């Protein structure tokens, strides 16, 4: 963010003609390229993993004849280009195939599991966003006139929190809030409260990271001329910080939050395991263990697309919030 050109409250950018269609076309082409890359990469990469899906599914006791029957049933006996052609052909019709292991439709698996992953990732992102901004701004404001101990404590605690792996955070949360205090269930998904601990476990590190970013950005913004001017007008604190300081933090914050959401879509795997949360991540791990190609491929494509859409939404939001981006058409 430029330090010499802050976003003035209520600023209106000049109208920009002709750029919107181009931007949409560029984005669409980008998504198509990403999708094509995901299809090719997911198809080839899963086949690079050692291990025969047929053997994995029927176990070591199966004979060569039984393996051959299963491979035939799974469509694995054809040449790789033929398999790829069949796969792309089905994909073009919206058919993601069926699980090698259970016979379930991959579409059904994703429809069942994706909402759990999205809920976890979105809530963790919201937690990071809200708590990170609140914490970072509060500390920056409080420390503006000193309070080095508070700043040191903030730096130390957020540094520790940001480096906490999900499984450590999850285990500690379960120990304290589920086992010792009995406030929340330690796992499962059969009630509303089961999501609380997984969200905190997943959101803790990003919250701390975002708080550090916001604290630094806020400290910078608070020293800019327009903020001095705003303060000199004796504006109410809420208006001062929410209306004048916050918009200038949003670019860096939203950029990080966008990356965070995309990362959390696949980064919830550990938390799903620790909390027996039935998201797509745990299904993908199971699928990798038995080389269930269709499930892995379907999940990679869908998660990839969700990440791309999330990134695009964040880009759009940034454009809407930042007049400089609107002017530049990015």
């Amino acid at each position, binding site marked *: 963010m430029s330090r010499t050109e802050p976003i003035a409250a209520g600023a209106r950018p000049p109208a920009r003609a002709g750029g919107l269609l181009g931007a949409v076309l560029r984005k669409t082409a980008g998504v198509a390229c990403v999708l094509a890359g995901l299809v090719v990469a997911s198809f080839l990469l899963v086949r690079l993993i050692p291990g025969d899906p047929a053997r*994995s599914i029927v176990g*070591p*006791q199966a004979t*060569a004849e039984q393996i051959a029957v299963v491979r035939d049933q799974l469509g694995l006996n054809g040449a790789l280009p033929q398999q790829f052609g069949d796969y792309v052909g089905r994909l073009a019709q919206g058919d993601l195939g069926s699980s090698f292991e259970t016979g379930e439709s991959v579409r059904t698996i994703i429809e069942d*599991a994706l909402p759990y992953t999205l809920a976890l990732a979105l809530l963790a992102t919201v937690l990071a966003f809200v708590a990170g901004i609140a914490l970072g701004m509060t500390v920056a404001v409080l420390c503006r006139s000193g309070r080095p101990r508070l700043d040191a404590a903030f730096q130390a605690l957020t540094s520790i929190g940001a480096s906490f792996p999900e499984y450590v955070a999850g285990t500690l949360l379960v120990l304290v809030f589920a086992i010792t205090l009995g406030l929340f269930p330690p796992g499962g998904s059969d009630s509303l409260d089961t999501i609380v601990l997984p969200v905190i476990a997943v959101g803790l590190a990003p919250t701390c990271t975002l708080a550090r970013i916001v604290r630094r950005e806020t400290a910078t913004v608070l020293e800019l001329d327009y903020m001095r001017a705003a303060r000199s007008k004796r504006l109410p604190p809420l208006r001062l910080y929410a209306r004048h300081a916050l918009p200038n933090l949003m670019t860096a914050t939203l950029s990080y939050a966008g990356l965070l959401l995309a990362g959390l879509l696949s980064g919830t795997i550990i938390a799903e395991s*620790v909390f027996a949360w039935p998201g797509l991540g*745990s299904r993908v791990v199971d699928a990798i263990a038995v080389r269930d190609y269709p499930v892995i491929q379907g999940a990679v494509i869908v998660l990839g697309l969700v990440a791309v859409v999330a990134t695009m939404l964040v880009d759009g939001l940034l454009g809407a919030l930042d007049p400089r981006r609107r002017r530049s058409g990015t």
Partner: protein
Amino acid sequence: MDARRTGLPPGRTTALGLIAAATAVAAVLAGCGSGSDSTGGQARSSVTIAIASNPALDPAKAANQADAIALGGLYDTLVRLDASGKVVAGLASSWKSAPTSVALQLRKDVTCSDGTKLTPSAVAASLTRLVDPATAAPYVGASFGPNKVTVKADDTAGRVTVSTSGPWSQLLPGLAMPWTGIVCPAGLKDPNALASKSFGTGPYELESAAPGRRFSLRRRSGYTWGPKLGGSDAGAAPTTLQLDVVANESTAVNMLVSGKLDIALLGGPDVDRVANDSGFTVTQKDGGTVWLAFNEQGTSMSDEALRRGVAQAIDREAFANAATFGRGTVIPSVVGPTTECFDDAAGAAVPTLDAAAARAALSKAGTVTIIGTTQLGGGAGQEYIQAALRDVGVDAKLRNSDTATWSQTLTSGKGDWELSVVPALNPAGSIIIPISQTTGAAPPKGTNFGGAQNPQAAAALGKAITQVGPESCAAWGQVQHALNARVDVLPLSTLPLSIVARDGVSVLAPQGGLPDLGTIRVR
């Protein structure tokens, strides 16, 4: 700093308020939970059990513990094995066994979950589907061997006769295995539906299936033909069973201690957390055996002296401690101690620990590659073997991998490994499973992982499968002894399983060390 300058109200009251609000929200949310329905000590109509993975719902596809547990509640078999490995009545009330056939008299009161009466013809159709090569049932050989199988029904006499093209002494116990669960005609008409519905005669029927999350089973009314498996039958059978998919054992124990689970099957060290808790009953079972396979197909391990040297270098007690977190016990045979025809005396033929002899025997062993799966104790047992071999001067390399990769290497028939630690789960408690992995054709054609061709074992096996009764068991003992004597295998450890049940809930585990859903009782 005043409030106007900071833009914040006096901080402490706000912080306290937030904490209070958060605590209140937490308490309200906690109150929304369902943990209260499984409070210890109260009789309840629902019991929740952890399973490690999504179970196969088609008996023919049964291959692992989760499959065997779930299928045991949905599909009855013709006979069952009790805790001592003895065959007891199931859907068949009596039988007449011969080396190449068994004639079974069916009970007359059995109905399928759709209410239709189970007939001998229906049983025959189910078993015929099972043995059809197109079904590709992975463990069908453990029940019927390499034979062609014919099944005939006599509806008038209420009898089913299963015949094999050659003698097969394990034919009768083979009909107790989970993959032989009888599928009723409605399921045979629509085999695709077997993946999501149940069509059995078992004590429960599938109410709903949410893969990755939960499988709900509902008790059938009028189920009276359950097997007599011994043990206490006190209490009432729960009306519903929830099979929750919980892959992580630490999570399963967390859910146990917080009341979200009633029964869990644990193989790792997390059982220690509830072992001394009076609120739980922990039952130790053997889920299979662990042994060391020597690749005798074109590697240095085709030399018996080298195999003996390897065996002399390994402290099996230390291996059991490393691989099973100190819970496993050293075994004298690849056959588990609770399996019928297990021969304790076979242990006399296992080479004893002798580092000096091992060093001498292995002085020209060259590089020895050990493979194994990290699913067994994180691979610690394999690491111990590598260290033990290095201690006696062997250039030992280790390739620990996930089960799929290890399994493919083991069964590929390629000679790129010398030693493999084989953790052989035996969810059916069948002697055929460990023996078929140590005798017969080598991979890729067969499942004799090391490819050892042991004449004494082969001769004894010929007797074992052609005879019935005590003579058969004596021959099985000779097979186990011969494998040890020629060091074609090195028996290492049991694969311990712990069944943890909440106080007020009981379950038996007569077969393969796995909880039998039909025996669950609540008090």
